[in-house]
């Protein structure tokens, strides 16, 4: 195939995709001359080029379409049929192009059927009295997705007819079909429709949406470049590692430079792989248009953030799932116009696609304002399919129930339409998305609509990962999944506690399930250390902590696939070679959640619901801590309020002025009996339920902890006593629900006292200024893990406000490039004030620039560190920390 032809093919298929989209827009907005002019121009170009290259079939088709569009321009009314006809013509052109691409020559065949229809449509004022194509019923052609909205006009050929002609056509030697008396619908010669369609869809992916100055580069070339850069990053990391060990300043500077260049190169190459997500959406307007016609629904497709870029590899993977989900929304979600009207909604349903960047991930939302998920039907179906028992299903929250739609073969659609309802799809969608490390989340409200939220990593090749260790072995955890790091040690601020042997951590008033990595890895004995770091991880809406022994740093790692012999281990998503040459395994948080959660899916994990949502929703099951206070009756309190459970030796309880107190983590904690009838023990062990508010704690003395149950919390009887919220039936037994707020005034005095006792933590606090949320999110946990308090600001102005507000800051870490003013200007402003004249500053530079060094020196910037050199930053901080200590 010569270059000219190849160029033509790529260009034309781009044009056609644009025309596709534009036509659908035009149909909705027939008076928009700009769109029409645009379409007209594109089709005209196609026609012209075809003529030039000697492609008569294409030229004839394009010409006929152009003529009809010319009529539109002259004021002919734009009808759905006319647009459908043009779209059908475009499809034919695409088929021919695909054939042309395969064989290098225009396939034989005739397009008189379409051309005649087009011409007739164009000259509609003078209808021909030619035989009318039989108005075939739409069901005839099962492959077709076209439903006619009115009877065919004279001379028109229904698409079903066409489709049949396609399929029944015997082959290249076009025989006249026997079954159609209509002389005009001669069967086109080339029949092979499916491969043509797929070839075309494969090609459409690489087309940029807007016309900027570009050159075409073979994808393989880019892939190769990417591999080489990945290797370069590895080598750079190795060099950095070596330079850290040997303190030779001689090559530190050129190495720093190499590091910068590599980082920039990496970014540049990554950018070449980036494509706007709009490329994956290009076909959707057409899909929705055809669907709304077929389903007789009115649907509007709103697309936002089409320019959001992501890696082409990722784009390829999510393209089909996205289309599927939009089809699903149109079919299951949006109601028929009259149903919508009946419920007071506008007749026209809306499907909204929204894409935006968030940290190192891209978030895509597919929202419809339809009927929402039918939870009852899903519950029923789950029981029918034996996925869960009736009792289990009843106890599940709506969020848990919604997840059933991702089970294979799960469809609640009553009728199987040609669009969806075959029960294939959502599980595939989920698998595809998880394959690339993404997550899918559903939010649905009955009668209000459903929103799917997909979060996927920007790129697959290089990811930032946190390097952790467990039992002397290192592992990488993708930074995307990491929310924060918490240091845990017995007796410190954060301690691992156990409920019936299951480790949990209280974190800001909530209990976080803890998964010791060593235990999941099976390298563990029976004993699990309670010391180390908790990597707080979020998978979908599940939040849990991975307990590791040590945390090193974050590193850009090149993800290498797992060997096929190891791929069955769902805990690992791949492996990588670190800077020091060691191979480490990459932990897959999704897999980890699955492994731990298997059996009861979500119940072991805390669902990170919005608190307001949870309170609104009465159906939501609440996890309750059931205990015995005084007397026989059972008491309960929502587990989410409980900070921890303790058992203390009764002789450690001190009585100060008749008030029981206990020394608890270096402070005095007031105790209160859970019932007046109950006495706090003087000997033996006393069970406590500890509640905390900020740094203050209170111990509720109870007789015995009975159980932790999950149940619907329905307060049935409002008690007169202020220490109870009321009573509820929990697991079939009447239980008093304790009002925690009642006890607080009882120990009010003690609260105040313990507050005064509080000594300030010795941690140094850092103000981190950088405009990239991603960068701040990435650095904050690392700094926190190293024992710093971190305040963050996005702009210089914000930083000045934070400082001005009296926030105590020991060190300022700022990027040099900030959106409002440069980091240097910020430092200059600080140096001007007496308060901050001596504030130590670490500046983060992206580029290596001698001018910057000079300026940094002038402004008494303590250290200038490369922006992505986290080691450098940490060592600079610790040096600074040392000198601050000395000074103090």
């Amino acid at each position, binding site marked *: 195939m010569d270059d000219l032809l190849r160029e033509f093919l790529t260009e034309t298929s781009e044009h056609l995709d644009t025309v596709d989209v534009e036509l659908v827009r035009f149909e909705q907005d027939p008076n928009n001359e700009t769109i029409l002019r645009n379409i007209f121009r594109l089709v005209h170009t196609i026609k012209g080029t075809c003529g030039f290259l000697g492609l008569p079939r294409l030229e004839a088709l394009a010409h006929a379409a152009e003529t009809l569009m010319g009529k539109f321009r002259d004021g002919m009314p734009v009808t759905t049929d006319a647009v459908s006809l043009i779209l059908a013509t475009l499809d034919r052109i695409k088929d021919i192009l695909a054939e042309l691409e395969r064989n290098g020559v225009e396939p034989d065949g005739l397009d008189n059927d379409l051309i005649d229809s087009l011409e007739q449509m164009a000259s509609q004022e003078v209808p021909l009295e030619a035989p009318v194509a039989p108005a075939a019923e739409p069901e005839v052609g099962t492959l077709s997705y076209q439903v006619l909205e009115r009877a065919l006009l004279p001379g028109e050929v229904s698409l079903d007819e066409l489709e049949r002609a396609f399929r029944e056509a015997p082959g290249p030697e076009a025989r006249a079909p026997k079954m159609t008396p209509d002389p005009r619908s001669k069967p086109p010669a080339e029949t092979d429709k499916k491969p043509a369609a797929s070839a075309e869809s494969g090609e459409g992916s690489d087309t940029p949406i807007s016309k900027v100055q570009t050159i075409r580069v073979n994808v393989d070339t880019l892939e190769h470049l990417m591999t080489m850069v990945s290797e370069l990053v590895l080598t750079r990391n190795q060099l950095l590692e070596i330079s850290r060990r040997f303190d030779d300043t001689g090559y530190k500077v050129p190495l720093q430079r190499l590091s910068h260049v590599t980082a920039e190169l990496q970014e540049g190459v990554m950018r070449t792989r980036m494509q706007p997500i709009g490329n994956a959406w290009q076909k959707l307007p057409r899909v929705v248009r055809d669907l709304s016609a077929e389903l007789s629904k009115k649907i509007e497709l709103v697309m936002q953030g089409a320019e959001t870029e992501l890696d082409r590899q990722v784009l390829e993977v999510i393209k089909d799932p996205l289309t599927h989900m939009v089809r699903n929304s149109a079919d299951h979600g949006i109601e028929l116009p009259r149903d919508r009207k009946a419920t007071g909604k506008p007749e026209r349903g809306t499907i909204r696609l929204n894409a935006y960047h968030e940290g190192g991930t891209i978030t895509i939302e597919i929202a419809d304002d339809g009927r929402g998920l039918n939870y009852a039907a899903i519950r029923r179906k789950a029981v029918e399919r034996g996925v869960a028992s009736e009792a289990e299903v009843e106890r599940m929250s709506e969020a848990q129930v919604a997840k059933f739609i991702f089970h294979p073969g799960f469809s609640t659609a009553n009728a199987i339409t040609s669009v969806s309802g075959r029960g294939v799809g959502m599980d595939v969608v989920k698998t595809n998305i998880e394959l690339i490390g993404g997550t899918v989340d559903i939010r649905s409200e009955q009668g209000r609509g459903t929103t799917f939220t997909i979060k996927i990593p920007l790129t697959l090749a290089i990811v930032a990962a946190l390097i952790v260790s467990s039992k002397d*072995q290192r592992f990488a955890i993708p930074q995307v999944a990491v929310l924060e790091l918490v240091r845990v040690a017995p007796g410190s601020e954060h301690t691992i506690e156990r409920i019936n042997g299951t480790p949990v951590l209280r974190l800001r008033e909530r209990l976080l399930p803890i998964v010791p990595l060593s235990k999941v890895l*099976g*390298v563990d004995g029976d004993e699990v250390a309670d010391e180390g770091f908790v990597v707080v991880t979020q998978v979908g809406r599940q939040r849990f902590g991975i307990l590791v022994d040590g945390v090193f740093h974050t590193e850009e790692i090149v993800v*290498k696939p797992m060997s096929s012999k*190891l791929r069955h281990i769902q805990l690992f998503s791949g*492996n990588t070679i670190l800077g020091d*040459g060691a*191979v480490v395994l990459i932990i897959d948080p999704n897999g980890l959640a699955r492994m731990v959660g298997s059996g009861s899916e979500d119940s072991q994990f805390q669902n990170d619901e919005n608190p307001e949502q949870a309170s609104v929703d009465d159906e939501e099951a609440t996890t309750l801590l059931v205990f015995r206070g005084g007397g026989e009756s059972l008491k309960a309190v929502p587990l989410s309020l409980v900070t921890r459970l303790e058992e203390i030796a009764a002789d450690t309880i001190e009585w100060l002025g008749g008030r029981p107190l206990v020394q608890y983590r270096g402070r005095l904690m007031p105790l209160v009996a859970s019932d007046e009838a109950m006495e706090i023990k003087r000997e033996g062990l006393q069970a406590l339920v500890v509640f905390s508010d900020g740094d203050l704690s209170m111990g509720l003395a109870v007789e015995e902890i009975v159980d932790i149950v999950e149940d619907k919390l329905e307060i049935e009887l409002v008690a007169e006593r202020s220490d109870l919220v009321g009573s509820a039936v929990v697991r079939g037994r009447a239980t008093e629900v304790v009002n925690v707020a009642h006890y607080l005034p009882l120990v009010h005095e003690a609260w105040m006292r313990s507050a005064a006792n509080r000594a300030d933590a010795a941690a140094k606090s850092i103000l981190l200024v950088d405009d990239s949320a991603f960068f701040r999110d990435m650095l904050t946990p690392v700094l926190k893990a190293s024992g710093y308090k971190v305040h963050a600001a996005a702009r210089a102005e914000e930083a000045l406000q934070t400082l001005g507000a009296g926030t105590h800051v020991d060190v300022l870490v700022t990027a040099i490039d900030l959106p409002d003013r440069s980091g240097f200007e910020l430092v200059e402003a600080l140096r001007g004030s007496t308060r901050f004249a001596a504030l130590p500053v670490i500046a983060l530079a992206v580029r290596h620039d001698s001018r910057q060094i000079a300026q940094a020196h002038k402004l008494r910037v303590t250290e200038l560190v490369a922006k992505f050199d986290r080691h450098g930053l940490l060592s600079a901080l610790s040096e600074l920390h040392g000198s601050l200590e000395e000074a103090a």
Partner: protein
Amino acid sequence: MTSANANSHGTSKTVADHLEYVTVTVQGQMLGLPIDRVHDVFVAADITTVPLASSEIVGLLNLRGRVVTAVSLRRRLGIPDLVVADRRMAVGLEHRGESYGLLVDEVGEVLKLEIDGLQPNPVHLDARWAGLSRGVHQLQDRLLIILDVDAVLAFETQKQAA
């Protein structure tokens, strides 16, 4: 029965009558690997163990920037591990496009052997061994078992992680 057989009875012996084998030793037993399957021989250092993997897999190692899966020939043959393995030798192999390192006790010389000399496995050879062996060569002072590389690297991995 085949032309190769007929050839070997002739006087002129061509290269095609011979095959070269890299010999390795495991627990004193000499085994041969077809040389065209062996990519390199290296010292396996710094092996990263893979928790939850099947027992045959010792771990992963970095061989000049590539991640190689290390498989223990001992464990494949059902021989217990060496108590002290200070310098583990490995033979680099490829199987279905992936790189493997087969850990052995020692790597010996390369032997050029006549194809005809290959005899079938003794019938009472342990089934585990027989499954991995293509046959036996009788050398002067010892026996050489010819390994079937693909069989050695084709083992079940689907035991589900707990």
